């Protein structure tokens, strides 16, 4: 056998979760190799220079939930990680006005007061209530989800812990959480607010990465996720990583290498090798075989369980659960290189708005209408767009005086009628530019180049089946002990020696790293 090598652990996929898992395993003294299909590490957290001098955060573009203990454990600041503030959100309005949320409470309140004194007061209470609810469920994120149907000692202990924790919540907190996990974001926001651009902008964060609209039940819960960062005290809700999210991956990769992890790029995994009912290594597309005591996949659930491993090694119901796992991509990206800053009619000149998020979300109706089109296989004619201008936050992203703009666009269904092709991709890109042009008329003139990414492209480039940015929608039936499949949410799989630790595992997506870290811990537990 040629090209055979022996490791303690093989990690499939050098996205941030794979790299983090590799780093933690190496930190525990294991000999680790992380395999990456592409020539660059980072997975969906990559920064690439698509046009010379202009660096795009191609897919994921902001950081909120990257676990602070990972930053410290892996000494990421020493490896170049810097999380720069993204201090505001501005929503341009159709009447030429705007709604802004700044990073200062008094400024934000005054701004909202201008539009609705009632909402200005409600917003304070709303954020306190949401932050408390987030605080109440936060400890759950760090737990390995116990399986409520199991009688194993470990699961019972986990359930007990969870039960004790649940008992520590007040009755009103429990009602609040029960409501939050069942409501639609539109219903929740209608209870609190009256001003459309405010409701539209807040509802948008409930639909990101799902194939749902603001009126779909379950979306209120996702809003809660966005308060997680805030309750960490010193950790901002949203930030932009130096050099984009590729900067996060580079820092983690550098730390992992320093810990002794071998990272191989251009190493596509074909199959997980199974011998004697155990995962014992992987076969690469180039014919090489690598052997190890354990194999962990940081790819999406479909690839991990339907492609890398033959179905014969899994129970039918597991395979069925993975097949049923919803991974419908619903969003695209348009990355734009600009020769000048976009000038927004609502706030002309260069200003603080350019350093924060700019949200095209004038109302809940606007977003729900955008969803209507997607439901029936079209991309939205007037999509929700979340823009940031990375070059205003980190000048290294574009040549001096020039800029890059990152536009997250929803909805763009993976299953578009007739399938995605170049013409549809172009039309999608044009629709996005048209939409932006309504608020920033100079945009077309300023464009030096643009990259349009559909869910199909996310699948093709980043290797995420279905092109869903979270490797699987953050739906309630796909979270916690149900993620990715019932009974198998503890990073183990029905195949001994085969582990799973990526966004498709608990606690889910975002550049958070918790899945990779928790998976590494479980692997190490089993080692003892």
């Amino acid at each position: 056998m040629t090209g055979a090598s022996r490791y303690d652990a093989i990690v499939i996929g050098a996205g941030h979760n794979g790299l983090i898992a590799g780093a933690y395993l190496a930190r525990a003294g294991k000999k680790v190799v992380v395999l990456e299909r592409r020539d660059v590490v980072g997975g969906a957290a990559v920064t690439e220079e698509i046009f010379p001098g202009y660096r795009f955060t191609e897919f994921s573009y902001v950081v909120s939930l990257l676990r602070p203990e990972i930053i410290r454990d892996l000494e990421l600041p020493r490896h170049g990680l810097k999380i720069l503030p993204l201090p505001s959100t501005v929503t341009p309005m159709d009447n030429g006005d705007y709604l802004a949320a700044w990073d200062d409470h008094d400024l934000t309140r005054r701004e909202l007061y201008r539009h609705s004194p009632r909402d200005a007061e409600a917003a304070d209470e709303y954020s306190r209530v949401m932050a408390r609810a987030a605080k109440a469920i936060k400890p759950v994120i760090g737990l390995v989800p116990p399986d409520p149907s199991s009688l194993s000692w470990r699961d019972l202990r986990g359930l007990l812990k969870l039960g004790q924790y649940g008992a520590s919540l007040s009755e009103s907190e429990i009602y609040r959480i029960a409501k939050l996990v069942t409501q639609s974001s539109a219903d929740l926001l209608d209870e609190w607010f009256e001003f459309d651009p405010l409701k539209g902008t807040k509802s948008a964060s409930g639909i990101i990465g799902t194939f749902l609209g603001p009126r779909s039940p379950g979306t209120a819960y996702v809003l809660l996720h966005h308060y997680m960062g805030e309750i960490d005290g010193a950790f901002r809700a949203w930030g932009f990583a130096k050099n984009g999210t590729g900067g996060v991956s580079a820092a983690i990769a550098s730390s992992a290498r320093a810990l002794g992890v071998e990272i191989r790029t251009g190493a596509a995994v074909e199959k997980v090798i199974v011998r004697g009912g155990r995962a014992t290594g992987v076969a690469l597309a180039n014919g090489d075989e690598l052997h190890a005591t354990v194999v962990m996949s940081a790819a999406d659930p479909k690839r991990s369980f339907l492609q890398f491993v033959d179905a014969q090694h899994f129970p039918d119901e597991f395979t069925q659960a993975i097949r049923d796992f919803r991974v419908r991509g619903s969003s695209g990206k348009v990355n734009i290189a600009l020769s000048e800053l976009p000038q927004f009619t609502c706030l002309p000149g260069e200003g603080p708005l350019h350093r924060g998020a700019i949200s095209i979300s004038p109302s809940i109706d606007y977003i729900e209408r955008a969803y209507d089109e997607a439901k029936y296989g079209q991309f939205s004619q007037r999509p929700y767009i979340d823009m940031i201008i990375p070059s205003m936050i980190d000048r290294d992203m574009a040549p001096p005086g020039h800029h890059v703009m990152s536009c997250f666009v929803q909805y763009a269904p993976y299953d578009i009628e007739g399938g995605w092709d170049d013409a549809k991709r172009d039309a999608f890109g044009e629709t996005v530019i048209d939409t932006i042009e309504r608020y920033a008329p100079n945009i077309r003139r300023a464009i030096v180049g643009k990259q349009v990414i559909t869910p199909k492209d996310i699948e093709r480039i980043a290797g995420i089946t279905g092109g869903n940015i979270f490797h699987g929608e953050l739906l309630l039936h796909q979270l916690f002990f149900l993620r990715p499949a019932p009974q198998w949410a503890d990073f183990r799989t029905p195949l001994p020696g085969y582990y799973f630790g990526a966004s498709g595992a608990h606690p889910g997506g975002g550049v958070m790293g918790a899945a990779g870290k928790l998976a590494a811990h479980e692997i190490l537990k089993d080692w003892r």
Partner: protein
Amino acid sequence: MTGLYQLKRTPFHARTSALCLPQNWRRWAGHIAVGSYDLGLEREYWAIRNAAALIDVSPLMKYLIEGPDAARLLDKVTPRNIQKLAIGQVYYTGWCDDGGKLLDDGTVTRLGEQSFRLTSAEPALRWLAMNAVGLRVRVTERTDQMAALSLQGPKSRAVLNRCCDTTVDGLKFFRMAPNVLAGRPVTISRTGYTGDLGYEIWMDAADALPVWDALMDAGGDYGIAACGILAMDMARVEAGLFMLDVDYTAATHAWIPGQKSSPYEMGLGWTIALDKPGYFVGRRALEREAREGSAWKMVGLEVDWEGLERVYAAVGLPPQIPAMAVRGSLPVLHDGQQVGYASTSTWSPVLKKYIALVHLQRPYYEPGTRVSLEITVEHHRRHAPGTVVSLPFYEPDWKRK
């Protein structure tokens, strides 16, 4: 209108006051200085760490020391070997009373064979004059006549190269060179108070505004930000740099001996040239301390985040972090016994750690020692565990490169 009842304004006041919209002003050596230009410190802090930050440091005391015995004077009053200081080189140094206790700290720049610039935090004219008796030297205070800007951050070199007649590419760490900026003669030293790549620009007060404008203009594409002293205060703690009247007390101001600090205690052992010939102020005391070791030392403390979380979680709260550096003494304990104190503590945005400059008794100042910091949680004294570390907390590769 100015005068009697007002603090002094710096030569940049016309620019800084127009930008200081939150009216967050602080005092600095009898001047008003901008605390922050934004309501929060984040943008200015990150300009220091990721772009370029322009800080008005004009209130620094500045002295021109000239004459055939200028070097002899400085050799006598500072522990450094000034004879070795090359023209165009800058030394950082503290200086002591004859008991070997610190009076102040600052920089000495050799402008020429017989001419030096000394900066200090406190007035030093009387002390220099006393030591100059019998020497052929002239000391002139230039504090008001000379304006100074600190340009700090990884893009500071690129910004200067855009607006200076001569590039600063060849200017090494702690070197100084004359240059022309906005058509005005300036000297630029590669120095600062942030632990990042940075430069200080020294100019005639009359040239202040055109130089400021040229820098802000050149820095536009690099994300330059006017930066107040509060963001700098966070950066200097990360860099392990201390401040007079915050982290130590001048020996002449101390009421009791315990308030005094020696340069060894403050981590300045590397500046003390005991191998230089002859007497210098404090020599005998410093020799003794070098021999016998120091009773105290200023080192770093990294608070365990998980420990801090536990302390707060006990009352059901996430950790509460102050928005700026805390200039207040906090007890530091080992096994329940107080063994020192923190003089400045801050959240470090780049390290995602809570850090403090701490003064610890022997032997607790050894790196790796486990100690705890006393903090107040919901009005109760609590102890957050942490580890003693060497300074600096943060030093990017490009600081010296």
